[in-house]
């Protein structure tokens, strides 16, 4: 089984990536990077990462989230996070990245906050 499985779906002009697994150095980080690059190439710039199934992330994975955020912003898009697990929320809090990312508890709330 892959370290990180990513399933893609559309909600209007917003692309939702349902992620399941771990975002760690190597396979998991590469999978996220590849997915974001491909979406940007396809002109899909509004992206919601559903992290409900991501129970573990390391510094490389955190770096990949930051890289995704800056790449999408550069293209004039938006990246938002959905359903952070408790551990992931803790990590983004201690690294102060929750001051950067928009994170939501419900998909409806997240989708309604894309401009």
């Amino acid at each position, binding site marked *: 089984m892959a370290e990180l499985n990513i399933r893609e779906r559309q909600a209007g002009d917003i692309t939702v990536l349902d992620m399941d697994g771990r975002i*760690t*150095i*190597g396979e998991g980080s590469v999978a996220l990077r590849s997915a974001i690059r491909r979406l940007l190439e396809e002109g899909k710039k509004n992206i919601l990462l559903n992290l409900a199934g991501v129970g573990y992330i*390391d*510094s*490389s994975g*955190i*770096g*990949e989230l*930051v*890289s995704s*955020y*800056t790449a999408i912003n550069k293209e004039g898009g938006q990246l938002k996070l959905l359903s952070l697990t408790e*551990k992931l929320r803790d*990590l983004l809090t*201690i*690294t*102060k*990245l929750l*001051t*950067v990312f928009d994170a939501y508890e419900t998909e409806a709330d997240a989708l309604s906050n894309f401009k």
Partner: protein
Amino acid sequence: MTEQTTRLVLPSHIEAVADAAAAATDFVQNCGLGEELAFGIDMAVREAVTNAIVHGNQEDEAKKVEVTFNCLEHALEIEVKDQGEGFDPSAVPDPTDPANILKTSGRGIFLMRTFMDEVDWLARPEGGTKVRLVKKF
């Protein structure tokens, strides 16, 4: 409690990080520590071994990373040794500083310090760096 020690010698490629983490998980369980400590120890071991492989040994397959787990009476002590050119942790900027917040790397040491009670680095006389991680319980 009987003191226990486990020693791993790992190749310098990224896949070995998962092997070190798996060994850490087993050792934490054998040491009798709970889930609440296991997450942070796993994280610290992953970051220390990643640094040893990527920044220390520069992913040179000819170089090894050695990880030693010691379960002491009131602490878990982990040592990660590389064969690199040395490392100055004070040269790594604070990743939570607003000037660095959007950097895509540089959080590993911060996470190690967050989850462990003691983290220190030692230049090895024979070359390379040893990082020592301690979690008290």
